[in-house]
């Protein structure tokens, strides 16, 4: 069975500083990996995905993530954050051949301060 661990529940960061959100997964088969962002009182918006190919994935709003199979990780990074990046971030995994059913991590709350 697949599972996801987000290692940081809260990440405070100053505006224009870099941020990294850590995500580790567990699965016995090949996986697809995703990062979603959730703003208050809204649904989830896809930031980026890894399905196959290059392990460095670029997404929207300047975010990128790197798939590391040996470390079973999929950490999310942004070199310079804005106040508008304040949100909840969820890492999710789907096992290949499992009808794209997602398992989510507990989420990381990013608070950007001026």
């Amino acid at each position, binding site marked *: 069975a697949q599972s996801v661990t987000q290692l940081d529940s809260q990440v405070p960061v100053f505006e224009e500083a870099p941020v990294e959100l850590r995500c580790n997964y567990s699965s016995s088969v090949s996986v697809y990996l*995703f990062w979603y962002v959730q703003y208050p009182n*809204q*649904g*989830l*918006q896809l930031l980026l995905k890894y399905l196959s190919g290059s392990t460095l994935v670029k997404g929207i709003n300047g975010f990128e993530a790197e798939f590391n199979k040996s470390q079973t990780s999929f950490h999310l990074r942004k070199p310079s954050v804005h106040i508008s990046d304040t949100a909840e971030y969820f890492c999710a995994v789907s096992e290949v051949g499992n009808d794209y059913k997602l398992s989510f991590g507990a989420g990381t709350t990013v608070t950007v301060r001026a």
Partner: protein
Amino acid sequence: EADIYQTPRYLVIGTGKKITLECSQTMGHDKMYWYQQDPGMELHLIHYSYGVNSTEKGDLSSESTVSRIRTEHFPLTLESARPSHTSQYLCASSGTGVQYFGPGTRLTVT
């Protein structure tokens, strides 16, 4: 514009009432999903559907039921609402591996 819709966005209702949360998508996706999310917590899959007349229970046990009579429509029903059903319910659909989410319904049962 292709999208996924959920109504109502917010619902406050008394114990024992029957409720239906609506979810519709205009992307022609075969697969649809319902997730439950408590405040500050991760999402848990409660129902999913491969296509018309196909529904399955998810990883988290739920007293709700779903139906899939049309490709674009995937409503969730609670026959008798209880305070323990208070939560946010998110609907999603998928065509090629990526799930797209609706805005969610925040349900409060008093």
